[in-house]
């Protein structure tokens, strides 16, 4: 029975990340159309025109993936077949696995059992996430190498150099967060954010580590090679960079990896800085507003509210990344590496130093 529960939770986490990834494709197309003052994809219909209106969402969610999966899988001449298959696998597999440690709710009390709403309850959650994000670099490098094309190789190497440069800044920002919460376990961090500061404000991470939030957000966007950091796959310049020679479902796996990484950065920011599934002043038995007013709620409703809160915050930060992508121009490659090594890395180090000193000097500054 326990095995079944674990299996169901892993399946739920996997389905969640798949759904979010595919929905983000549609949100990106329609959202970018909105930002650029045009309509976007809306020329889809069923059976050649039954419905009197067009369904843009059908276009992106069903027609596009179906088209991509049924295209021919071309492997360029001289390319290593195994590596050509392995690269998209290594690009997407770690990203799917990352979602297994993100808590999407508190507990679900059903049938006398209290089920922790987190697929994998690791006490080293943050390290697990960082390790898997680092493995995503393999997909980029192998994709460039296995294509037997010099431009793809250069695109892959530049992409991987960019990714590893920003991983250090990301790791350092997370060190400051771990310092504040004193644990690497993601569910415990989210639970600790339910406490109230001065009895009124929920102790979300953003109040303790605003600089780490900014660093993590910027480094996360650079890590996922999204604009304004998308020179490795600059759509208007290099065709497709490291995945030029991929077609069919392998190409769609690389593109899905892009959107899943958006979701991962959003999930990390939500979990560590904005309370994850926490609704302000909502505890397991109902609302407890400051000032004494309290509202008792059944536990299933509380769980539902918390899961909805997590999904809402997740989409909010995904939308923020889409907004940033379609608003800012692309950075030049040397400006990009400059930002990673000479600006973010020293700032992150200084942030850790200040946080450590503050945490020791002010006893009530940290969250437990």
């Amino acid at each position, binding site marked *: 029975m*326990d095995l079944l529960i*674990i*299996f169901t*939770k*892993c399946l739920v*986490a*996997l389905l969640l990340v*798949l759904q979010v990834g595919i929905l983000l494709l549609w949100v990106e197309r329609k959202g970018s159309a909105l930002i650029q003052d045009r309509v976007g994809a809306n020329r889809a219909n069923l059976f050649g025109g039954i419905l009197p209106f067009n369904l843009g969402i059908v276009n992106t969610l069903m027609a596009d993936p179906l088209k*991509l*999966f*049924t*295209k*021919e*899988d*071309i*492997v*360029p*001449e*001289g390319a290593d077949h195994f590596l050509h298959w392995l690269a*998209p*696998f290594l690009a*997407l*597999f770690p990203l*799917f*696995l990352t979602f297994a440690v993100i808590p999407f709710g508190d507990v679900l009390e059903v049938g006398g059992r209290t089920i922790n709403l987190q697929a*994998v*309850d690791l*006490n080293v959650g*943050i*390290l697990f996430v960082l390790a898997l994000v680092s493995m995503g670099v393999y997909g980029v490098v192998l994709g460039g190498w296995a*294509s037997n*094309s010099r*431009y793809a*190789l*250069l695109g892959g*190497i530049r992409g991987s*150099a960019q990714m*590893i*440069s920003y*991983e250090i800044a990301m*790791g*350092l920002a997370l*060190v400051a967060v*771990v*310092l504040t919460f004193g644990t690497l376990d993601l569910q415990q961090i989210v639970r600790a954010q339910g406490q109230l500061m001065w009895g009124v404000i929920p102790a979300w991470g953003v109040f303790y580590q605003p600089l780490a939030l900014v660093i993590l957000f910027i480094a996360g966007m650079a890590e996922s090679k999204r604009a304004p950091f998308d020179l490795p796959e600059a759509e208007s310049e290099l*065709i497709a960079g490291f995945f*030029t020679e991929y077609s069919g*479902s392998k190409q769609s*796996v690389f593109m*899905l990896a892009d959107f899943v990484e958006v979701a991962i950065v959003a999930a990390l920011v939500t979990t560590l800085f904005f309370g994850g599934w926490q609704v302000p002043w909502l505890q397991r038995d109902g609302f407890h507003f400051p000032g004494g007013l309290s509202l008792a709620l059944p536990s299933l409703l509380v769980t539902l509210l918390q899961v909805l809160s997590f999904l809402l915050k997740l989409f909010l930060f995904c939308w923020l990344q889409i907004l940033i992508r379609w608003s800012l121009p692309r950075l030049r*490659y*040397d400006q990009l590496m400059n930002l990673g090594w*000479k600006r973010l*890395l*020293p700032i992150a*180090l200084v942030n*850790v130093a200040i946080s*450590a000193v503050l*945490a*020791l000097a002010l006893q009530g500054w940290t969250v437990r």
Partner: protein
Amino acid sequence: MEDSYLAVLISAGLCALVVAIMVGASWVLGRRSPNRAKAAVFEAGNRAVGEVKTHRFPVKFYLTAILFIVFDVEVVFMYPWAVVFRRLGWFGLAEMAAFVLVLAVGLAYVWKVGALEWD
């Protein structure tokens, strides 16, 4: 805690299965009609010359990777310290500050000498 690693295994198996199906989908569902022109690598109309496996690329990427290794190991060492930070107090902070200072001097040297330029 033991069954949390079993959950990692189950999760990894599920994810690997789904991704493998996605990657192999067009090999199964798509047509297979290899063609000399289709298999040629992209070079905007010209024929590509030269092998990738012996193609040289700039050494500054290697330098970036080495610097990444050094600073990433530093970050990894900071994680256990950050977890038991409260118990170590000011003495632990001073020790970690000494460690980071040595590596920060290294970063300053690398910066000054120009290894972070241009890439």
